[in-house]
């Protein structure tokens, strides 16, 4: 329903010729889902994403203005003629367009198909020896084809809006706009850059889904502002910004109303039952993680049905930051994990190092009531499972461990079902 609501919103906005963001629509849908299912929303993460919706076009505008100035100086210096310049610009536009489309594909396929990966309906396809297409790859292929069909059917109006209605772009300005937008997407998506900045003890750029539409519109405005801003069609800019504001709202409302109808009119199950419980071990874990626990023992034994409910109850007793709220949800979620030798054998390393796999093997036969208990048990056996939490330099290492743990939680929980 979340994907459908986001898809319908983007479709409607595209029909109106407004360059809207798939990421914005998806975020709106997820908030709609959170409101409907009474799930906890991490406000700090949400604010981080919302801030990128402002930073992204601004950054893109600044990069475009800089790049445009440099390109103009370069063109003046190289001393070629009009036809050679036309040829080079054409080649540069084709390459930049391909790079931009590649960056878009790399980012947006996750927005479009990412939510379906855990429930992909396709079996793996085997073609002779050594060549196969996994179900996720088939899913992404379908997504890629759907994007291509979208380009042929409904993208023209949006292209016209970005390409000519905001401002008349020269070929050089068009190249700068595409390059700036690709650079911004790269800045917000590159783990290597994040690692490099972290290694130099510099603040990292958050790896969050940013909007390519916002980036390209920001770039066009940046070029326009550099030229004095007189050529920018400001009424068109306002209508685009309005589109950006209402996209997540419409998507959120559509998702909420759609879920209501699915559940109450069509009697469909829209939400898995989850239990959140503050057992003694959970409260002890809270203490270790620096969460106040005075008065939480009164909640011991109470079963909460939703993540928002457990956070509200804990907040009534102690002070809780947004990030701590997320930890409360993570640690109090009851999910029985059974670590079996067969499942471990089936894992076939799956990105796990031999040491990590060996540590996991030692836990065969164990059961856990809370997923984090498996993580703690693994970190006690091997330092390769330890989440360091030492700031910027450990950020990528910690993310890697957390992703592996999340994978294990899914595997061993699913096996129980």
């Amino acid at each position, binding site marked *: 329903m979340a994907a459908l609501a986001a898809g319908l919103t983007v479709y409607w906005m595209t029909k109106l010729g407004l360059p809207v963001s798939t990421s914005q629509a998806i975020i709106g849908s997820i908030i709609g889902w959170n409101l409907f299912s009474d799930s906890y929303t991490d406000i700090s993460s949400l604010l981080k994403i919302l801030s990128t919706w402002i930073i992204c076009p601004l950054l893109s505008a600044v990069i475009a203005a800089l790049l445009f100035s440099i390109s103009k100086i370069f*063109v*003046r210096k190289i001393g*070629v003629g*009009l*036809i050679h*310049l*036309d040829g080079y610009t054409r080649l540069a536009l084709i390459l930049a367009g391909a790079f931009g489309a590649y960056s878009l594909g790399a980012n947006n396929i996750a927005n479009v198909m990412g939510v379906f990966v855990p429930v992909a309906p396709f079996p793996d396809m085997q073609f002779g020896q050594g060549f196969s297409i996994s179900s996720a790859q088939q899913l992404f292929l379908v997504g890629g084809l759907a994007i291509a069909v979208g380009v042929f059917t409904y993208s023209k109006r949006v292209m016209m809006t970005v390409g000519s209605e905001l401002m008349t772009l*020269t070929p050089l300005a068009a190249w700068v706009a595409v390059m700036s937008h690709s650079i911004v997407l790269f800045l917000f998506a590159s783990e290597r850059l994040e690692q490099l900045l972290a290694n130099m003890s510099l603040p990292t750029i958050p790896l969050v889904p940013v909007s390519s539409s916002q980036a390209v519109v920001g770039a066009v405005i940046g070029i326009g502002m550099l030229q004095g801003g007189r050529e920018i069609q400001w009424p068109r800019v306002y209508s685009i910004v309005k589109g950006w504001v209402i996209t997540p709202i419409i998507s959120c409302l559509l998702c909420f109303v759609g879920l209501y109808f699915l559940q109450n009119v069509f009697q469909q199950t829209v939400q898995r039952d989850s239990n959140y419980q503050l057992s003694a071990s959970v409260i002890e874990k809270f203490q270790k993680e620096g969460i106040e626990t005075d008065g939480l023992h009164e909640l011991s034994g109470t079963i909460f049905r939703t993540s928002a409910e457990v956070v509200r109850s804990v907040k009534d007793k102690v002070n809780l930051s947004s990030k701590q709220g997320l930890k409360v949800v993570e640690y109090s979620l009851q999910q029985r994990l059974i670590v079996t030798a067969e499942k471990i054998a089936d894992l076939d390393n799956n990105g796990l190092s031999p040491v990590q796999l060996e540590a996991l093997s030692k836990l065969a036969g164990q059961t856990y009531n809370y997923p984090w208990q498996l993580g703690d048990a693994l970190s006690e056996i091997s330092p390769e499972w330890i989440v360091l939490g030492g700031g910027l330099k450990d950020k990528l290492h910690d993310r890697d461990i957390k992703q592996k743990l999340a994978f294990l939680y899914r595997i061993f929980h699913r096996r129980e079902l």
Partner: protein
Amino acid sequence: MNPLSLFFKKQYAVEEKIQRLLRYLEDMAHLYKGSYEAYLDGSSDEFTQRNEDLNKIEKEMDDLGLQIQMTLMRESLMPDSRDDLLWFLTKLDKVPSSFKHSLAEIALEKPEIPQDFKVPLKKMLDHTHKAVKALAHATDSLFTDLRAVRQHVEEVSRQESEVDQVEYKLLQSVFENEKYELARKYQLKGIFKQLGAVTNLAEDVADAVLILATKHST
């Protein structure tokens, strides 16, 4: 060989044709000067011969201009550059026509040029020749090195300004002279104005070259 030439074959073909067009333009400027001077010197055969040569080149230039326009229409350049070039070629096409019309007027009217005016007129012709040559160089730079366009355009303006000064003095001499009848005065005025119009046109086209160079390098 530039490896990019493989990718931009059509564009380079247009460039080569434009270079030929510019050589024709320079030849026409030379023939125009020679033909006019022959008339002033009273060599009517040479005037007729050079006039015919000029008309032949004008015809070839027309054909070549049409070929370039057709090639441009077949999308060998980006729309922005293509439209600019078509606009420019339409302007440039007026220069050979102005040579042709100026000489046609002389051939038709056969005006009697007073001896005193022949030297200044030859001076005007010399500046006109230089202005059109500078225009050809400016246009050439538009296709080889955008940075060099401005200096050639400035040269066109300089020559045009020289022509203006000579033209004004000639007109002053004509209208202050009581010997000439009014009809003759107006005939001579027409001849001088027609000659001055060639450089005015060359300056207009040079301005267009500068606009294109500025637009495409900023």
